[in-house]
């Protein structure tokens, strides 16, 4: 079936199959409560994977997302702790703006100065992580420092689903529109496919990259607030190493590290897949120590499957079917 050859339906099927498999061993996994938990737990990874996908599509990478998340989360937590009377919307806005600013720094260095993304985000990752310490002086912001509404918001329910899920859903839809139906998004694919040609055609690559990394930072900022609010704690090392999980989600979702290829649905499904594994392990009573190893194995399998199309393509020169007899032509014509 042609549909099965595409990545996204296959991935969706695999996610469902995995859930069912786990459910067979531990039926408690299939209860609505457990599935709802699964959905909620996956939201942050899904959101970060979406913007990381856009970055990777442009042949870039953003290793600084986890540090941006931590710094923005700390900003939000400290703001709420010292000024509990501030409306929550303002605190969330502060987190988003912090993330946006941090992302724009990346975007400027990568887009305008044309520095290599892996090195830039390696640097900013270190700087931002250090800044969390400087900002908080190493102190933790704990649950009792935070106002009640600050902590409650992510898990509060609206029409039966937590805010987290609604936000993630909105993010998926927004990103899908951006990637498929906006010039901004289509330009990113062009830049990732053929950067020289994109410049020639007149696509404003510098601006596009600036705002792509800005967007990545902003979403990381929002996730920063959601993270510290949901887990009710903010300290220097939160989300340490999370950037690799995000990238892994993209790779599993079929986003090519070489750029130009990737879909919103794929990235979201890849994130969902990783979340299922993470949630399934405790339910299956597998020691949590296996999680990292399993994630690693899944990434390797995903990359292998991804790259099957990349094998040194030999050109198809021999005709695949018999050619029709060619017309004859008089030599004296």
């Amino acid at each position: 079936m042609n549909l099965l050859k595409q990545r996204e339906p296959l991935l969706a099927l695999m996610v469902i199959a995995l859930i069912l498999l786990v459910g067979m061993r531990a039926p408690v996994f299939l209860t609505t409560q457990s599935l709802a938990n699964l959905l909620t737990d996956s939201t942050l990874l899904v959101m970060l994977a979406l913007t990381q996908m856009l970055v990777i599509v442009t042949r870039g990478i953003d290793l600084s997302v986890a540090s941006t998340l931590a710094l923005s989360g700390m900003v939000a937590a400290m703001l709420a702790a010292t000024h509990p009377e501030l409306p929550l919307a303002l605190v969330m806005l502060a987190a988003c703006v912090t993330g946006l600013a941090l992302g724009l720094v990346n975007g400027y260095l990568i887009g305008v100065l044309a520095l290599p993304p892996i090195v830039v985000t390696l640097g900013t990752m270190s700087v931002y992580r250090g800044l969390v310490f400087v900002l908080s002086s190493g102190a933790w912001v704990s649950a009792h420092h935070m106002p009640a509404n600050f902590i409650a918001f992510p898990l509060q329910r609206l029409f039966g689903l937590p805010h987290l899920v609604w936000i993630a859903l909105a993010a998926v839809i927004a990103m899908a529109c951006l990637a498929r139906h906006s010039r901004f998004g289509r330009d990113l694919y062009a830049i990732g496919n053929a950067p020289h040609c994109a410049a020639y055609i007149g696509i404003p690559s510098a601006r596009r990259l600036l705002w792509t990394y800005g967007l990545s930072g902003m979403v990381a900022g929002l996730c920063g607030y959601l993270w510290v609010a949901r887990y009710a704690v903010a300290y220097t090392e939160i989300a340490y190493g999370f950037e690799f999980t995000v990238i892994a989600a993209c790779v599993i979702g079929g986003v090519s590290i070489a750029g130009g290829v990737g879909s919103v649905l794929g990235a979201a499904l890849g994130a969902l897949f990783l979340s299922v594994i993470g949630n399934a392990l405790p339910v299956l009573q597998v020691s949590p120590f296996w999680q990292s190893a399993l994630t690693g194995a899944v990434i390797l399998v995903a990359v292998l499957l991804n790259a099957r199309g990349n094998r040194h393509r030999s050109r198809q020169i021999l005709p695949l079917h018999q050619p029709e007899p060619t017309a004859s032509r008089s030599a004296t014509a």
Partner: protein
Amino acid sequence: MNATTMTDTDAPSRSASRYTILDREKPALRHLVTRWESLLALLLLAVFVAGGVTLPHFLDPYNLLDGTANFSEKALIALPMALLIICREIDISVAGTLALSSVAMGMAHHAGAPAEALLFVALGTGLACGWLNGFLVTRFMLPSIVVTIGTIALYRGLASVALGDQAFTHYPQLMADWGQGTFFGVVPRAFVILLGFALLFALVLHATTVGRRIYAIGNNPAAARFSGVAVDRYRLGLFMLTGAMAGLAAFLLTGRIGSTRPNIATGWELEIITMVILGGVSIAGGAGTIGGVLLAVLTMGAVTYGLALANVPGIYMTIVVGVLLLSTIALSRLLRGKPTRH
């Protein structure tokens, strides 16, 4: 026609060509000054001057030698990492390899293996981890960044599984002797090992045909292949070498701290890559020197040392490292000019 004899003493007779070609460009001071390594040397000097002026005991030789402990093991891994990056590859999994090697040593020791064998256990584990990386990259033509993102999770995961809740301790004295011991009571052994390997790597990269081929692969892998260079074999070899050096670093580190915990060497991969990039190795491949990497290692080490002396928390080091990396890459772009985006 005879084979090209290397002791070709034919006098450069009638040069049939109407063009004269010099052997090399006339060396000019300008060339020396704009080299990355010169700037790094200046930076290192500046750090020493600043440290010496502001901090008492900064220039105390015993303190300095003590301070080498915080970078010797990392720098050992930076050496093969430089070669990998020159070849346009990267290995994010080195810290995972180190952790797994350390765990393997712990398990071997627990099972009664003699102290002398532990080094080989570590090296062997490192080689195996490196081999897996290299195999996946060369056999299936996968991009090394995603492969090693996968293998670091795999290796660290396996290490955690084997370790569980405990830590391995009570390692034999032999390891402590090498990890934290000194020669002549003063010079740390690990530092000497680092210098020795740095010399070896520099020799191989800059003075042998092996190094020449590595630069060729980094400059243009397709053309290298067309010229008869066994590109895939070199890549596999470099990944295995990186794994082995990570194993060696595991031996020294475990000896120094005396235990194996699940979070051993966390975050090392990024510091090591920073050392290499700061050392002037281009992320695009084909350029860089071991001397530069060593200068970068010493500079970063000196800054860490200075901060420690000034009682500044270690986390500030991450900011310094990040800023150093960003400013040097921006500076390099200014010096070398904006490349066409590719």
